[in-house]
């Protein structure tokens, strides 16, 4: 009962937060069973390298842990989840081949300098203002298709602006 009411409150807060986020250049929320995805945005590395990254927040509102197994996009040669880490003053970007764990009633915030979806060989006609098609594949919940806006460089990392929201109080690092 407690969990059920907690879940209700969390979803209300989540939807309110998402409505609030609409003004920023993010997309979402999407719902897949008890998985909610919101505040999705993407940017392309300048200079024509064809590299891009996607940032979003995944809430697992079910009583079971889930796993983000794979990510894909038809407009990139390769799409994978990476984690930027700084250890002993050295920044590295490591793939997460085992997927991203999504604990029950918790969330994973992807943002610059942390976990993110990295794309390489992004098709040339993808530019600022485009909607990037991205598919997230969850172990239990199934797969979810997103359209993620490509924001201008330095658009202020829109996801960061909403991090103080109560629904996002328990970030995973």
């Amino acid at each position, binding site marked *: 009962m407690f969990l059920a009411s907690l879940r209700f409150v969390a979803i209300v807060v989540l939807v309110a937060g998402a409505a609030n986020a609409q003004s920023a250049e993010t997309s979402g929320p999407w719902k897949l069973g008890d998985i909610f995805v919101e505040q999705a945005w993407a940017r392309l590395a300048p*200079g024509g*390298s064809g590299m891009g990254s996607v940032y979003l927040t995944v809430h697992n509102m079910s009583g079971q842990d889930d796993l983000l197994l794979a990510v894909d996009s038809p407009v990139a040669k390769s799409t994978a989840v990476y984690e930027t880490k*700084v250890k002993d003053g050295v920044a*590295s*970007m490591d793939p997460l081949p085992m997927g991203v764990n999504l604990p029950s009633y918790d969330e994973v915030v992807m943002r610059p*300098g942390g976990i993110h979806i990295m794309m390489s060989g992004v098709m040339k006609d993808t530019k600022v203002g485009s909607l990037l098609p991205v598919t997230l594949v969850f172990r239990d919940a199934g797969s979810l298709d997103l359209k993620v806006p490509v924001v201008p460089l*330095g658009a202020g990392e829109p996801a960061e602006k909403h991090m103080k929201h109560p629904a996002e109080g328990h970030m995973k690092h």
Partner: protein
Amino acid sequence: MLKRFWIHGVAAVLAICAGVAISLYLETPGQERPSIAIGGPFTMVDQDGQIITKQNLDQTAVALFAGFTHCPDVCPTTLLRLSSLMKQLGSDAPKIRIVLVTVDPERDTPEVLKSYLAAFEGDFTGMTGKPEQLKEFAKAYRLFYEKSGTGRDYTMNHTSGVFLFRKGGNFQGTLDQHEADDVALRKLKMLAGV
């Protein structure tokens, strides 16, 4: 009870004195502090294909960091932050030269660096060179880098901090990506000699 109060009082006064002494020591500019030997002779090229040496670099204060253009996450973040900090520095910004040294000279030619840097607001210098020139530079400037992964999709691991050098080439310190903007600004103002 009174005795304990005394001990705490004395400890507090000592701590404050130590703090003031340390901050005075740190604020004392230049000559009295031994300079940390970071940097040395090098020859690289900038994003316009012009040769750049230590003599060129030492003419102004410099904020230097390692990166590469095939980096979608951390490098744009560092550049965007520096761009925003320089904007906040206002009229003192031209006193500091922001330098991105690519650790991926294989892909980052001067042309690639130029088009990459053009996307950011502000005046940035890009540096690249032959792999052995980079190796020499990195050794002199204590920058670490290594290739990670194989094939076309490799990435580079590299030193993440921004190194600050005073005009003349003396090492002042570093900027850390997690520190607050006002701390970073204070360091940059000190670097600009404001």
